[in-house]
């Protein structure tokens, strides 16, 4: 549909530099299932952060539950640390309407009251329907509303984008 070319590996390098500047002592990365969880896992390793990173899913707080039902295959949220008082850095592959972020923040608050929540994304594709913005994004693109963009991870761990 478009000749859009996104080099996910190059963008990851930019994201890594931005997140390095953003994290502070006591920060913890929480990846949004699924692409964001891959990113958080790799960022956590590359930044040599202490402890474990978290994984969070929007499934239980989605606002389209009544029309789409319960997602069949989301991993459950796993936050192996105290959320209360922490600086949380949410990581996602693509930021679009902002509805997933809203759901994920609600999910996060079910575990406690964080000191702060920031959002970093690989790609901001615009089209926001809620007042949400990322602290940093490695790329900004414009896509038609119906087009789907998401991260894929190869067996060797390299990232690419799927555009459909």
């Amino acid at each position: 549909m478009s000749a859009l070319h996104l080099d996910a590996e190059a963008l990851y390098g930019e994201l890594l530099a931005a997140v390095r500047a953003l994290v502070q002592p006591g920060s913890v990365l929480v990846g949004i299932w699924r692409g964001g969880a891959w990113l958080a896992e790799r960022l956590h390793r590359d930044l040599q952060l202490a402890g474990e990173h978290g994984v969070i899913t929007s499934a239980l707080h989605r606002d389209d539950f009544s029309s789409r039902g319960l997602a069949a295959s989301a991993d459950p949220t796993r936050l192996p640390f105290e959320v209360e008082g922490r600086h949380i850095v949410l990581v996602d592959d693509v930021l679009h309407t902002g509805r997933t972020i809203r759901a994920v923040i609600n999910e996060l608050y079910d575990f406690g009251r964080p000191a702060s929540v920031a959002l970093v994304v690989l790609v901001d594709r615009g089209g926001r329907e809620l007042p949400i913005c990322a602290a940093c994004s490695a790329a900004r693109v414009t896509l038609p509303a119906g087009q789907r963009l998401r991260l894929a991870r190869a067996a060797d761990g390299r990232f690419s984008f799927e555009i459909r």
Partner: protein
Amino acid sequence: MLARNNPQLNRHDELIHLLSIEGLPQAVLHHILDTAGTFLSVNEREVKKVPLLRGKSVFNLFFENSTRTRTTFEIAAKRLSADVINLDIARSSTAKGESLLDTIANLSAMHADMFVVRHGESGAPYLIAQHCAPHVHVVNAGDGRHAHPTQGLLDMYTIRHYKRDFRNLTVAVVGDIVHSRVARSDIHALTTLGVPEIRAVGPKTLVPGDLKEMGVRVCHDMAEGIRDADVIIMLRLQNERMSGAMLPSAGEFFKTYGLTLEKLALAKPDAIVMHPGPINRGVEIDSAVADGEQSVILPQVTFGIAVRMAVMSIIAGNTP
């Protein structure tokens, strides 16, 4: 429109009512068990509530008494943020002569979204599912001798939690099988999930012979029934059976089929002991077993809430 004439599934094979485990595809059972795993962790959070059923009204219709099952459904619905209405139906409309379908029509006019039904007559939840409005979902919480699907599912969740894989297990169901809707639901679920050896253990008067046709091994000898089992599901011996001349006495039953540590030693060393509750100590199970290391009776209760949350949220998210 109804897939293979199974009123529980829509045309995409998605669950819209839970009436019986019989006839449900393996994928649906696994989906429920996987989803229950998600909800199990919700029950350990600071905030034990998610908004999936916010604004929905769940009516608990218990035509037969059951404090425990009703309470776990109520907790499950409330943790999904639904409004829960408990109707002591046995003592109200029915007593005044109202028919089942008139009761349902009246409750539907109150904008119910889900009925959780316990009824003494087999098939009553099917009747309700067939006659309620299309957006209303029905969960069978036990009907006659027919089925108790959420108990069957929580039993499967418990087995999967401790044993991981169904495909190499020996499961013994022991006691009053002929009157037990739990046994029937368990056997259907175990079969669907691929358990290679299912045994029904008990006296001739309480174990129907036609179970063999379902691929179940019938054992009237307790030692044979539980030898090398991975899972032992004990059933409650209902006191009223004693008077019906089906059994000589509770003491006699305990001597032959009651699970003691001595008999349990015949099963695999890591075998788990389950019971749907309420337990009769000294009738079908000895206290040393019920309170022992191999007993998972209380975890079953905890898992039951997560499984009921999974069932309610899955059916509420699917449209007919």
